[in-house]
């Protein structure tokens, strides 16, 4: 985090804006926390077949990203899955 980021983060107006942006993306996508939890569990289930992952540290959320095909933002499922160990066959 840069010094500028540090100061930017400090004021509550920007915190509000950032939090709102995130919550609205999932509101608009009509994706409830329950559904997100189901998706998360399924992801853990599938990935675990191939590698050992840190289920506690796994983070998934719906964010916005620039569309590659047209100009404008589209919702994207973002997943951060920490790997503990690769399974070697």
């Amino acid at each position, binding site marked *: 985090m840069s010094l500028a980021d540090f100061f930017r983060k400090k*004021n509550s107006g920007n915190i*509000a*804006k950032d*939090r*709102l*942006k995130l*919550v*609205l993306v999932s509101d608009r996508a009509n994706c409830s926390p329950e559904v997100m939890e189901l998706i998360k569990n399924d992801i853990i289930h599938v990935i675990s077949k191939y590698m050992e992952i840190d289920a506690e540290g796994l983070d998934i959320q719906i964010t916005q990203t620039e569309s590659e095909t047209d100009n404008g933002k589209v919702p994207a499922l973002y997943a951060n899955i920490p790997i503990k160990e690769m399974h070697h066959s």
Partner: protein
Amino acid sequence: MSEVIVITSGKGGVGKTTTTANVGTGLAQLNKKVVLIDTDIGLRNLDVVMGLENRIVYNLVDVVEGSCRIKQALIKDKKYPNLSLLPSAQTRDKSSVTPEQMKKLTDELREEFDYILLDCPAGIEQGFQNAIAGADRSIVVTTPEVSAIRDADRIIGLLESNEIRQTQLIVNRLRMDMVKRGDMMTVEDVCEILAVNLIGVVPDDEQIVISTNQGEPLVGSDALAGKAFANICKRIIGEDVPFLDLQKKASVFERLAGLFK
């Protein structure tokens, strides 16, 4: 040609009723024939904000049920004869009226009035569906707070799916001193998040509380919020009015505050 405008917000307490009272009075000051309808059945409030609470004989539910004629239920404003109020019923609930009945009522009022303003209840249930049923366009009121903006976003989505063709935003109760400190979202932030056109910014102004206490809308007065509402009215009738410089007033305060720091 007359227009039916619903004033809504999702969240309660952000200033829908105050906005309806001030915008209605402001349009009357511009010599338009205006009727205000309080659609918040069970929680009647527009009458007290307008200072007309002592004149109620019949209400919205009476009209819809055919217990009286529309003319009998309309209350003329104290100052502006071209401004009327159709009060809500206090002892009934939202299911006393249907969206179809509301549509019929607003269509009948079109023959007599230039602007029909509907003060929508908070929430997204039947009261909201009733209020938007006959509307041509909508004004969404929000404050620069996370809860109000989140609810406004939901409401904007619902208005779109109900094919309300034009939705415009009022950012109410803006505090420039807090915006300057970075402790309140800016109007630009709010517009960027909600992605709708802005029709007005109303600063947080204690004169609003005072005028509501007295039952007289503030619009048209020299108070900053009064000017902001007057400008909103001009924009509603299609005039191109620049946004108030709210910064100026804040900086005077700040300079004063600075002296004592």
